[in-house]
C-alpha cells in the first residue's frame, strides 16, 4: 500500500499496535464478522457519507481495526459518521455486516470513555422524558383539536429501565439532573 493510500503522516509501528483489538470487536454484538473482510472496497464505493465526506471511509476503518490501531479508532470522530443506511450491509460480498459493526465499535468507544457530547445528551433525554424529544402541553392542545389522543408528556419508567440495564456503568456522567 502506498503512503498516499493510507494517508497517514506517521508510519504504523508494529510495537504500537494492539493486535488483540480485533478480538474485542468480534466479541461485541455486531462485530462478529469483521475478520471476513478482504478489503474489496465495495462499502466505501457505495457509501453515501463518503461521497460527501471522505473522513468516513468504512474500508479504511476496518483495516485500522484489523491492524490494531485501537486508540486511533476509538478516539476518532469518524466512527460516529456512519449514517446507518445499510447500503454497504446489503452489498458486502463477505457479509461483514458493516452497519452493525460500526455500532459495535461505538459501544466499545463509549465503554472506554469516548462518547461524543450529543450522544451523552441523548441518553439524558431518554432518561428524563422517555423520548429523545420533549412532548409539551402545546402538542397535546393541537392533538386534542385534531381529535387525536393526548400523549403522556414523559415515560418516567425509562429511567428505571436504564438503571436495570446499567447504562451508567459505561457512561460516567450525565448532564441531565436526576
Amino acid at each position, binding site marked *: 500500500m502506498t503512503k498516499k493510500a493510507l494517508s497517514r503522516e506517521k508510519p504504523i509501528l508494529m510495537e504500537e499496535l494492539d493486535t488483540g483489538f480485533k478480538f474485542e470487536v468480534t466479541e461485541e454484538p455486531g462485530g462478529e464478522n469483521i475478520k471476513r473482510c478482504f478489503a474489496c472496497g465495495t462499502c466505501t464505493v457505495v457509501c453515501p457519507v463518503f461521497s460527501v465526506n471522505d473522513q468516513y471511509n468504512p474500508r479504511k476503518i476496518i483495516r485500522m481495526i484489523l491492524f490494531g490501531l485501537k486508540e486511533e479508532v476509538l478516539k476518532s470522530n469518524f466512527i*460516529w459518521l456512519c449514517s446507518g443506511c445499510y447500503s454497504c450491509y446489503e452489498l458486502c460480498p463477505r457479509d461483514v455486516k458493516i452497519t452493525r459493526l460500526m455500532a459495535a465499535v461505538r459501544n466499545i468507544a463509549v465503554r472506554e470513555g469516548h462518547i461524543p457530547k*450529543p450522544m451523552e445528551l441523548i441518553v439524558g433525554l431518554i432518561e428524563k422524558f422517555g423520548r429523545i*424529544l420533549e412532548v409539551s402541553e402545546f402538542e397535546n392542545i393541537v392533538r386534542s383539536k385534531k381529535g387525536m389522543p393526548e400523549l403522556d408528556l414523559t415515560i418516567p419508567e425509562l429511567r428505571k429501565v436504564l438503571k436495570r440495564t446499567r447504562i451508567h456503568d459505561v457512561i460516567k456522567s450525565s448532564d441531565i439532573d436526576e
Partner: protein
Amino acid sequence: MNKSEYALFLGCTVSVKGLNYELSARKVADRIGIKFVDIPEFSCCGFPLGGIHHSSAVTIAARNLALAEAQGLNIIALCSACTGHMTEVEKLFANGANAKDLKRINASLKDLGYQYNGGVKVRHFARVLYEEIGVNKLRKLITDPLTGLKIAPHYGCHYIKPSEIFDGFDDPIHPQSLDKLIEITGATPVQYRDKLQCCGGGILAIDEETPVKMVKQKLDHIKEANVDAMILVCPFCNIMYDEFQPTVESTFDVEYSIPVLYYPQLLGLAMGLDPKKDLAVKQNQVKVTPLLEKIEGLRGGK
C-alpha cells in the same frame, strides 16, 4: 390476533414533529378499515441507543414489544428507524431464538411488570398498505385520482434495509412498493438518479454539514427529474428534506421549492380527504398550496 387491529407506535419524532404524518395515517387507516390502538406507555423505540449501549437499546425495544403483546396486538410503526430497530429485536427473539438473552431481559423487567414472549410482529404502515391491504383493495378506495401528477418516491433506508429482517416484502436494491403505492393514487411515480440515497439524518446530531450535503445531492437529482412533489415514509427523512430544504437552499444558493408529503397525505388526497382538516398539510414546511392548486387545475378546476 385480529388482522386489521394494530398497536400504533409513534416513537419520538412523530410525536413531536410529525402531526401531519400521524393524522393523515389515522385518517386513511380509518377509510381502509385498519383499527389503531393507542398504548400510552410506549416510549422511544430504543434505536438511538444502538450505537451507545446495545443492551439498553434491545431492552427498551423489548419493553415496547411486551406492551403490545400484553394486548394481543401486532405493531404498526410510522417511523422507519423505529420499524427497523423493533423488527430487528422482534426477529432476535421470534420462535424461541436467543432464549437465554430474552430470559435475562425479562428478569430485569420483571418487577416493572413486563414479560416478552416473542409473539409480536412489527410492520411499517406503508408495508401493511402494500403487503397486507394490497394495491387492488386500495385502488377501489380512490375517489379523487391525482392523474397528471409526477411524484418522486423516497424510500429511505430502514423501511427496506437490512432486507434480511423484512421477509422479502420489497427488493432492497430495486424496491417498488412506494412506486406502486403512488401509482394507485393516479399519480405517476418518477424515477431519478441515485433513488436510494440516504437522507443523512442519522448523523445530524454529530455533524450537520455532512447530511446537508447529502440532502443537496438528493434534491438536485429530484429537481432534474422535474417532479411536482416527493413522498416519504419516515419522520427523520422528512426533517432532512422538508425542514432542512430552506437551509440547503440558502447554504448553496439554490432553489428547489419541492413539496415533501408523507405518503398517507398523498393517499388521503386521492381518497378525497380534506387537505387541511384531515391531512394537516399546513404542518408541511415547504408550501403544499401550489401543489393543491395544480391538482385542482388538472381536475378541470372544479
